[in-house]
């Protein structure tokens, strides 16, 4: 292990919370609560201090702590991708690490008061510490696999914390949903990691950003995507799960079942932003794919709007905040989608303050009115006098979220809008020399979506404040503020919610913050603001309308007038537009059904598979089920016999996969060599086998000219550029028109359209061509197979069609036959038919 003393700080920042978790989880179980608080709060605080020291000491460039060679991903042939156990900090991870530890410290502190009555106090703090550890590991990891460890870790802790209060297994659904949705995303991250490793030979972030040039070349195609698009979309898929984007956002609102400080820490400030963080980390690859960015932009904007609309209608504090989080994450991804990674990270930063503040405020309210789990807005109201600190700080948070000028949320949201307007304005964004283009319709759509989302943000944040703190009380508790340990975090976070935005201002002494970040992430956009005053007008307009509506509707009202006013839309939005129900029907029920089905895997299943499906045997099947049901020796033995027959059946019939390869002028048939296989081939279909009897040593065979069929010729039409794949035209004696598809649109002069410019047919084993081009005399020519002819920009080549009957015999004397027709040159295809029989 080596590294500068400063690099050791990275290790401390990561390990301190782990130590805290171990001590309080395993050894302080029966200790006084004060001891637990002391250990766990100070563990996180130590992490904060260490991260801050490292961050401050981080001048230009990065800091790295080298551990040891963790493992090597084998890549075959002695090759491998070495993976170090290493931590590193640059402007991006530094900002995240300090923010995570800082907010975690405040939330730990708040929890001391909030969870004071909790029985499993030590367990709670152990989980919280463990979570902070995983998050710091995620942020400070120097390579993807280590990041993945943290990535899994935060998911796991979130899982444990969501289920924290549940007394039995029946209530764990929310926790399990969260975990499974996250795992669905993990698969994509893993696959993306494999791809990156095999393409670039490294998974280290630093090396990766240097080798990102690999992605400039369209290295391979996956479903018609370039490598950059495939990798970006895979990582984005992972991010949609962790950062709750469409279609994987369903888990986050349900995850509010845990204690409120947990919601604040995990589901607002830290874990959910890790998807954005990963995107920013991968920005050197992301910016190389316009397609992926467009997808991200649209998904982000749609999520922002959809979740914003759902948030309007929710009637519980935490539910509103949860959907609000989903919506704000949508904003961040919209920024990622136009390649404005630093704007996205800016919003991550400001959002962390005000959303943590709002959640803790909600926690403070719930603590005050003794609401369990969540607080219904209909049972709150008028809390301003009883909870002055909470009320004031909550207002600050709500206004910051709404985007009131000069508060943190305003600045970051403005930057996102600026970026979007920039993208809509000039379709070409320059990123490291590669042009990225976002279709302007996509950018415009996103702007509209985000403007509406901003409007609804303003509306629901004001609504939340008004319905909670103003008007007549609709509850019968005697509310009181929590202790200092609860008030202090609120105040500090409120300060952050006001000031965090100024760090980004191009002011003297502050510019380093934003500048150094931009040096790390690869923004596709130039730094300067775009779109003039328009983004600000849109933002402020949305704010004014939303806030105005909220005040008009809710000022002094006891009832929520929204359900009546919006009617069916309200109900639909309240139910999350039926998405949960849809998922239930699409995924949950089928899986449950399959599991029931497989669980009964003995006779019922074998029966279902082999007997039940063909309806004619249904009666036999049901009888068999009744008589053989059960887990007896019998049923298992039959299962084995079924297996044996299947295994035997696999080898019973030979498989034949003929590939046709063109080597210059030669056309070669290739057959897979295999044990006990022997082949014979009949060319031309005359019944004589050119290879003699079945031969085991046959692997490749040149197709002789005699294989050509007399009545078939293929015309290969090469268009400019001539090295592209030719278009094949199979000809017979009926004259055929060569039109736009074969010759290309530009080839056919305007006057010739519909006037049969070139006709082709086959006569005496040769191609006859009649050209009828405007301006030229009609002309007729003949092309023998092998000859070529040029007309304008096209080159026409005539080639014969070969016929081959390939037969393969396996060790058991079973023969599979395939008859093939294929042109001597051009694309090889066209299996005419196949079949099996037995030759003893």
């Amino acid at each position: 292990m080596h590294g500068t003393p400063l690099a050791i700080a990275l290790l401390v920042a990561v390990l301190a919370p782990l130590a805290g978790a171990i001590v309080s989880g395993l050894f302080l179980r029966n200790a006084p609560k004060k001891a637990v608080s002391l250990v766990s709060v100070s563990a996180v605080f130590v992490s904060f201090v260490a991260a801050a020291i490292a961050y401050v000491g981080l001048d230009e460039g990065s800091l790295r702590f080298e551990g040891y060679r963790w493992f090597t991903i084998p890549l075959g042939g002695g090759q491998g991708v070495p993976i170090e156990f290493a931590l590193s900090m640059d402007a991006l991870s530094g900002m995240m690490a300090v923010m995570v530890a800082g907010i975690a410290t405040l939330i730990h502190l708040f929890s001391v008061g909030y969870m004071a009555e909790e029985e499993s106090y030590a367990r709670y703090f152990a989980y919280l510490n463990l979570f902070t550890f995983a998050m710091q590991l995620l942020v400070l990891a120097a390579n993807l696999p280590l990041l993945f460890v943290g990535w899994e870790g935060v998911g796991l802790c979130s899982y444990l914390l969501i289920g924290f209060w549940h007394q039995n297994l029946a209530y764990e659904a929310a926790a399990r949903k969260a975990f499974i949705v996250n795992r669905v995303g993990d698969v994509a991250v893993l696959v993306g990691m494999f791809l990156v490793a095999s393409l670039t030979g490294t998974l280290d972030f630093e090396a990766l950003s240097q080798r990102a040039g690999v992605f400039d070349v369209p290295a391979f195609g996956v479903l018609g995507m370039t490598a950059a698009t495939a990798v970006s979309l895979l990582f984005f898929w992972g991010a949609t799960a962790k950062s709750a984007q469409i279609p994987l956002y369903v888990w986050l609102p349900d995850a509010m079942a845990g204690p409120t400080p947990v919601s604040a820490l995990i589901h607002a400030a830290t874990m959910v932003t890790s998807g954005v963080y990963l995107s920013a980390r991968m920005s050197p690859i992301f910016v190389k794919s316009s397609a992926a960015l467009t997808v991200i932009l649209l998904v982000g904007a749609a999520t922002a709007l959809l979740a914003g609309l759902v948030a309007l209608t929710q009637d519980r504090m935490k539910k509103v905040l949860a959907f609000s989080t989903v919506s704000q994450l949508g904003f961040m991804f919209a920024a990622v989608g136009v390649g404005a990674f630093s704007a996205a990270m800016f919003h991550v930063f400001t959002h962390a303050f005000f959303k943590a503040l709002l959640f803790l405020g909600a926690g403070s309210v719930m603590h005050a009115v003794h609401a369990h789990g969540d607080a219904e807005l209909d049972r709150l109201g008028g809390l301003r006098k009883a909870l002055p600190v909470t009320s004031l700080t909550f207002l600050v948070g709500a206004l910051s979220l709404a985007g009131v000028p000069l508060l943190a949320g305003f600045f970051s949201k403005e930057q996102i809008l600026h970026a979007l307007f920039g993208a809509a304005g000039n379709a070409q964004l320059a990123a490291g020399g590669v042009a990225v283009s976002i279709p302007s319709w996509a950018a415009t759509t996103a702007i509209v979506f985000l403007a509406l989302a901003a409007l609804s943000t303003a509306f629901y944040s004001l609504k939340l404040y008004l319905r909670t703190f103003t008007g007549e009380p609709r509850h019968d508790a005697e509310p009181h503020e929590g202790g200092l340990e609860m008030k202090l975090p609120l105040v500090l976070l409120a300060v952050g919610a006001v000031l965090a935005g100024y760090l980004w201002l191009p002011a003297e002494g502050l510019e380093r913050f934003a500048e150094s970040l931009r040096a790390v992430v690869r923004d596709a956009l130039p730094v300067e603001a775009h779109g003039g005053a328009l983004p600000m007008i849109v933002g402020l307009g949305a704010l004014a309308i939303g806030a105005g509506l909220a005040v008009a509707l809710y000022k002094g009202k006891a009832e929520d007038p929204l359900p009546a006013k919006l009617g069916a839309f309200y109900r639909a939005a309240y139910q999350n537009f039926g998405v949960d129900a849809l998922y239930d029907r699409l995924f949950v029920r089928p899986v449950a059904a399959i599991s029931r089905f497989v669980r009964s895997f003995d006779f019922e299943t074998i029966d279902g598979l082999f007997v039940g499906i063909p309806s004619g045997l249904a009666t036999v099947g049901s009888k068999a089920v009744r008589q053989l049901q059960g887990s007896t020796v019998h049923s298992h033995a039959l299962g084995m016999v079924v297996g044996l027959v299947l295994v035997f059946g696999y080898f019973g019939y030979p498989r034949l996969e003929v590939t046709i390869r063109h080597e210059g002028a030669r056309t070669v048939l290739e057959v897979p060599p295999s044990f006990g296989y022997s082949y014979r081939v009949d060319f031309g279909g005359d019944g004589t086998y050119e290879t003699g009897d079945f031969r085991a040593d046959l692997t490749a065979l040149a197709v002789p000219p005699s294989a050509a069929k007399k009545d078939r010729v293929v015309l290969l039409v090469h268009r400019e550029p001539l090295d592209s794949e030719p278009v094949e035209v199979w000809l017979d004696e009926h004259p055929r028109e060569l039109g736009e598809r074969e010759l290309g649109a530009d080839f056919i002069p305007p006057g010739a359209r519909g006037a049969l410019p070139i006709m082709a047919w086959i006569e005496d084993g040769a191609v006859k061509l009649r050209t009828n081009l405007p301006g030229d005399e009609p002309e007729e020519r003949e092309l023998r197979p092998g000859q070529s002819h040029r007309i304008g920009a096209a080159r026409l080549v005539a080639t014969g069609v070969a016929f081959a009957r390939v037969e393969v015999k396996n060790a058991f004397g079973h023969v599979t036959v395939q008859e093939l027709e294929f042109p001597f040159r051009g694309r090889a295809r066209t299996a005419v038919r196949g079949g099996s029989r037995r030759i003893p």
Partner: protein
Amino acid sequence: MTGSAGSWLFLVAASLAVACALGTVLSRNTLRSAMFLLGHLGSLAMLYLTLHAELLAAIQLLVYAGAILVLFVFVIMLIGPSGGEPPPFRNAFPRTFAATFVATLGLAVLGLVGRTAMEVPSAPEGFGGVEAVGFALFRDAAVPFELIAVTLTVAALGVVGITRGKTAVEAAGEAKRPEAE
């Protein structure tokens, strides 16, 4: 052993072996099954003789018929010949399936093995005799031969463990939870 005598011996022994095998499988009385098995073992010993495996034929009779089968009969006597098992081919499904299985296996293997023309060299002097097989077992295959001892020890340990008298604890009752039905 070739020539017509060998052929006749083969035909008789083979028919007997198949008939006894069928009898073993199809008899509803367990004791009768065991007797058919005895016949089967005997006819196999005869077949071994036609293959120049004199020692194996002797072992077949001594160990298989003499020891294993006696064990079977002993157990059948101990627990009484069973009855009341439903006829084996009552169910449509296993019948269909088993027939398919045997047909598949049979077709594949019969066609194949029957086709395989394998030359039968003349057996050297002493092939299959006590001396030759003894050398093969004790000298060439010493390792497997010694390892069989471990297998037999394991079986003995297992049998002792399963059948020996109750321990005090068992008499007092067993673990409660796993038995809770």
